[in-house]
């Protein structure tokens, strides 16, 4: 929370101005916009998992 908003929250609400309330509303609307944007962001594509096993060449196979 920004310092100004924290100050508003710590203030006796009977002393809050219209501007203070507007600032709080603006702050939380910006937070909401960020949240909505994060929800719509494409998820990272997972990279292909490399095989954990040894590489075997046809020359190694004994019939």
């Amino acid at each position, binding site marked *: *929370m920004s310092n100004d908003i924290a100050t508003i*929250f*710590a203030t*006796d*609400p*009977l002393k*809050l101005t*219209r501007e203070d*309330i*507007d600032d*709080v*509303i603006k702050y*939380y*609307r910006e*937070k*909401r916009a960020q*949240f909505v944007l994060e929800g719509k962001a494409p998820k990272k594509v997972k990279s292909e998992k490399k095989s954990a096993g040894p590489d075997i060449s046809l020359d190694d196979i004994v019939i």
Partner: protein
Amino acid sequence: MIEAAPSPFIPGTHIQFAWDSTSLGYFKRCPRLYEYSIIRGLRSSGADIHLFFGGLYHKALENYDHLLTQGTSSEDALVKVVRELFISTWIDGKPWESGDTAKNRENLIRSVIWYITQFGESDPAKTIVLKDGKPAVELSFKMPLDWKIDDQHYILAGHLDRVVTFGGETFVMDRKTTGTTIGTYYFERYDLDNQMSLYSLAAKAVFDSPVRGVLIDAAQIAVGFTRFGRGVTYRTDEQLGEWLADLKVWLDKAREYAEAKYWPQNDAACFGCRFVKVCSKSPLTRDIELNQFEVRHWNPLENR
């Protein structure tokens, strides 16, 4: 001076004639839970932060609905309810400290601002206007039933948040706050929920509204966000008829236990019950355990 609500019991007895979804829910779950919660009025000590948070959230949105119907602009109504929230959560000269990371003062104000920003004036759920011309918000009801005890009709009481049209159909809208993720699983629990059946019945019978059921308007309150979801639970006339028929059986049972002055435990319903530690003690020492609770009687006839 606010007049005290009348007692929901037949005078001189523990026979409850006025019921709401809370008292009915307790009785249906476990008669002993009902005895402790309603007959004896036992509550956990200290403030219940969930009730406090949920109550203020409800009140803020109710006030917003009211202001809109009175012609106040959405923005001015939002400013007014946010200011009221700041005031309501200023306790003994300082900010309310809930001790909870999710349900606290900042997240309460955030949740109301986010809700009104998301729904507000463009809410697809529109408040209906009743036949008397008043908007269908904050509707308290006391619905007498056909059954009597002595000369007293049984009464079903409650409070509807709103009645709305949504998707071309009419519903009671009920707001809920939760810490859980809202999805199909969350809403399924309401398909057999006592409160939703009672609200559907009341809307049809008392307010003569052709409701299809209840639109649950849920808010998930998390540490860093509030997420909203809406789900519908339907009630057909046949389901409501069955619910009423079952209610008669439940009320007869409640009377039987009250006359015997004995309410049995339902030991199949103890999970999550606040009295589980009490009931698991010997009957000889149980009253000592009950001293940890405070007495605050729940009255379905009390006006909200």
